[in-house]
């Protein structure tokens, strides 16, 4: 009797749960293989960059005899190194500028009462409505007049401050209690010190999210760098890659190597800060 009972019980239990478990497993499998399909272009890009020329047009995912030959070739050519450094410098400087100015402006609009506040806020907010594409022609003419074409400054100047970042930071400064600032004021700190030493440390997560967005945006920016640069020494990595791919007789494995060089750094950053970046996307998406 006791030997039969568990079987019958487990059978009875299995019936309602079985289809549900099966459903869960199927759901998991579909989502998992869908996810694998999503990363296939990235995987193929990397795997092709590790293949010898004779193997490139095989559909096989794993190279038979992986090689770093393509990377050596592309880096010895020297251009990708320059473009990579250009992008890194420009994206870093632009990020620093945005962190300082967007947070300063956001803080001022949030915590100060002064005539013209609403006007400045609405003006900055309204710049979100103006598409970059409308501004590139006047920016180009401006750069031509001031001799900014073909320079780091020329590539960077349009993005040094953004309405998006300002608005995001203003939202986050709302959560900083005024009492903290008042206490610092009584301690004799001036307003610049209060912003930098009291308020800024309290919004570090928002600053980090902003830094990631600005950096990624500038790392991948294409239209304006394409317009403002003429000489290959000043290309950013997307502009350089675009021209490189367009050259006659460039082998696909070399283009894939260039594409991988431009993509791998952001992927590594993502894999390290995954949780954090996803939270940042949600914060910016919902608040920004």
């Amino acid at each position: 009797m006791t030997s039969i009972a568990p079987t019958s019980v487990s059978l009875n239990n299995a019936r309602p749960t079985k289809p549900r478990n099966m459903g869960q497993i199927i759901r998991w499998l579909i989502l998992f293989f869908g996810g694998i399909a999503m990363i296939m272009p990235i995987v193929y890009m990397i795997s092709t960059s590790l293949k010898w020329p004779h193997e490139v047009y095989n559909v096989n995912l794993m190279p038979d005899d992986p090689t770093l030959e393509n990377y050596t070739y592309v880096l010895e050519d020297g251009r990708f190194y320059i473009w990579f450094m250009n992008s890194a410098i420009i994206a870093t400087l632009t990020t620093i500028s945005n962190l300082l100015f967007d947070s300063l402006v956001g803080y001022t609009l949030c915590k100060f009462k002064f005539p013209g506040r609403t006007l400045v806020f609405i003006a900055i907010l309204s710049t979100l409505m103006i598409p970059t594409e409308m501004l590139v022609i006047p920016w180009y003419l401006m750069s031509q007049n001031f001799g900014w074409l073909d320079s780091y400054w020329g590539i960077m100047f349009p993005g040094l401050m953004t309405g998006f970042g300002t608005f995001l930071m203003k939202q986050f400064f709302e959560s900083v209690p005024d009492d903290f600032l008042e206490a610092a004021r009584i301690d004799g700190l001036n307003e610049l010190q209060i912003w930098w030493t009291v308020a800024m440390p309290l919004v570090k997560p928002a600053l980090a999210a902003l830094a990631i967005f600005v950096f990624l945006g500038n790392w991948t920016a294409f239209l304006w760098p394409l317009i403002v640069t003429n000489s290959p020494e000043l290309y950013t990595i997307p502009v350089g890659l675009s021209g490189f791919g367009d050259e006659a007789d460039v082998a696909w494995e070399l283009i894939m190597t260039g594409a991988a060089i431009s993509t791998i750094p952001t992927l590594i950053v993502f894999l390290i800060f995954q949780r954090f970046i996803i939270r940042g996307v949600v914060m910016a998406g919902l608040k920004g």
Partner: protein
Amino acid sequence: MTLYRNLTIRQKQIVWAWAFLTLPVIFYGVIRFYPTGSAVLISFQDWNLLGERTWIGADNYIQLWNDPVFWKVFKNTFVYLLLGTPVSLVLSFTIAYHLDKLRFLHSFVRMLYFLPFMTSAVAMAWVWRWFYQGVPIGLFNNILAKFGIAQIEFLNSTSYALPAVLAPAVWAGLGFQVIIFMAGIRSIPTSYYEAARIDGVGWWTVLTQITLPLLRPTIVFIVVFSSIGFLRIFDHVFNMTTNNPGGPLNATKPLVLMIYDTAFNSFNMGYATAQTVVLFTILLIVSLIQLRLLRSA
């Protein structure tokens, strides 16, 4: 300095605020507002960058109205929008809805979907362009050949080229939308679902009567965000058709590529800025529709 000391606390605040804002206000004035106004003015001029600027009234707009290429481009731009937005909306919601219920390796699977968002459009345009080549080069056609299916001239066909260019754009944006949808789904109070379970309501009713209506702000945000993205599509098209930008036969040319061509290949600045004003107007209308929809929600 004594002057500053004699100010009241409130007056000091005003001084500080404007000290902080001086540089940014100049920046926004010179780098955002002045160029906006300047773009509108140039759109009423005839100017080829080297010669004289002459006022020609609305001639650029009239030329645009009569330009068959513009209407082709206008149509393409809206095809990108009308194909891309619903496809990515349905896909991202479906993925987010099911991903939300996933326990095992949840964050790993989520990462797989999000990863393409971190890539550069230019790099991925070249990867997809390679996929689309004919045999023996392209991956897709190699796979088709393995199954004995006829080749598809993805990027050289006037009917397949546009969806082929759109696919990587949808692919890259999907992860972002999935994350936003999942946050939206998570923010729905569980008490609604518990009440539905007690009432014995089926999953379809729960989805259509609880989940979707409560996700309305999220849906509006995603629709507008992705619509604006598709209306401004450029990087993918430019890089996948460099041998014949916007081709074949303008089949993939979006408005931004036409603007780029007119301004920086033909140096017809007046005509190009008129096109940017049209783009601005379209984007403004989309944003205003969003505000209206959000307010009524």
